[in-house]
């Protein structure tokens, strides 16, 4: 019987084939990773110096500044953890508020405080286009308030029956198909591992992980140079869904916040984040 040595034809052939195969797969792998890798590298490069910090500084200022017809600051505003307590408030919103008798998200609560403490007209605030006038105030406040919970984990309360009810309604709103495309939130965000073009889509029916989905807004969008609050993000989602226009801080936006926020329980918030 022929002895099998390292230099035998059989062994050489096998080694050559294995190396060729590995070489080919490495090449294919390199090609497959390059688009996603390139985007990840770009994101890492722009991660430092998030212009959201400019909005944070403005927001902190506006929280402390005396403004509005009543010439008062927002320092007595209760975001759910007691009057004036900002740290940790963001990761517990939306939640039930006894003074208004309803579940409110951050921006709806800011409308309440700007009305009651400062004398602003909440209807007028809600009708102001994004990026203009007092909407800039709301965007800046959202940036700062979310920054005060940066790194903390979401823990929306579900103790109050209304909070639990909003979760159920939010869930149904999430799966609500409509418009000429028959789209629901779930059409894009109902499954893990999907993407639209090259944009990864988080599965919002579950916890998609730290700093993803609900945990990544508000955010500064580099492509438009704008700070997008959650309300703005939802607004543009509905636009892309080909739905009619959702009211600013309307019930559907709050209910969806409860559904996504409860699903994101334990996820780390990175808001205000940086987006393309």
């Amino acid at each position: 019987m022929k002895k099998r040595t390292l230099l035998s034809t059989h062994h050489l052939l096998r080694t050559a084939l294995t190396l060729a195969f590995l070489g080919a797969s490495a090449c294919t792998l390199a090609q497959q990773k390059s688009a996603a890798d390139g985007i990840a590298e770009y994101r890492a490069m722009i991660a430092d110096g998030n212009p959201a910090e400019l909005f944070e500084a403005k927001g902190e200022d506006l929280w402390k500044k005396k403004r509005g017809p009543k010439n008062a600051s927002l320092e007595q505003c209760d975001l759910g953890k007691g009057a004036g307590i900002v740290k940790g408030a963001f990761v517990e919103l939306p939640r039930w508020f006894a003074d208004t008798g309803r579940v409110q998200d951050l921006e709806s609560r800011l409308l309440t405080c700007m009305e009651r403490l400062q004398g602003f007209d909440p209807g007028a605030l809600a009708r102001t286009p994004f990026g203009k006038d007092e909407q800039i105030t709301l965007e800046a406040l959202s940036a700062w308030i979310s920054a005060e919970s940066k790194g903390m984990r979401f823990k929306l309360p579900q103790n109050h029956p209304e909070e639990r009810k909003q979760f159920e309604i939010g869930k149904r709103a999430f799966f609500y198909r409509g418009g000429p495309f028959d789209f629901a939130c779930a059409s894009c965000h109902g499954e893990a591992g999907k993407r639209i073009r090259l944009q990864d889509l988080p599965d919002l029916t579950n916890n998609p992980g730290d700093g993803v989905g609900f945990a990544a807004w508000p955010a500064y969008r580099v492509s438009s140079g704008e700070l997008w609050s959650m309300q703005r993000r939802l607004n543009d989602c509905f636009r892309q869904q080909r739905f009619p226009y959702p009211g600013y801080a309307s019930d559907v936006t709050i209910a969806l916040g409860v559904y996504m926020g409860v699903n994101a329980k334990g996820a780390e918030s990175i808001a205000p984040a940086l987006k393309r």
Partner: protein
Amino acid sequence: MADPMRIRAQSAGGKATVRVLMSHEMETGLRKDSGGKTIPAWFIQEVSAQLNGKTVMTAQWGPAISKNPYLQFMIKGANAGDKVTVSWVDNKGDKRTDEATIS
């Protein structure tokens, strides 16, 4: 007066890394609004940095620099406690100066 800059400066081994976020529209002058009218150019033209009052860097910028620009640079011979001042002037003559202490 324009919105304030955010300046962070940290030193290590006699060199300081300075990171600056500036708030500015940086309009190129090439964009058109929804009505078709050209939006006038409005961008930072000059940037300068001082270390304890002495100029260590000047830069000429143009419309290629993006909105809300981020600038990072290193200063040799800078230590903790030194003062860094950054200034900019735009094409309309608007200016802004902010300072930070190197940590």
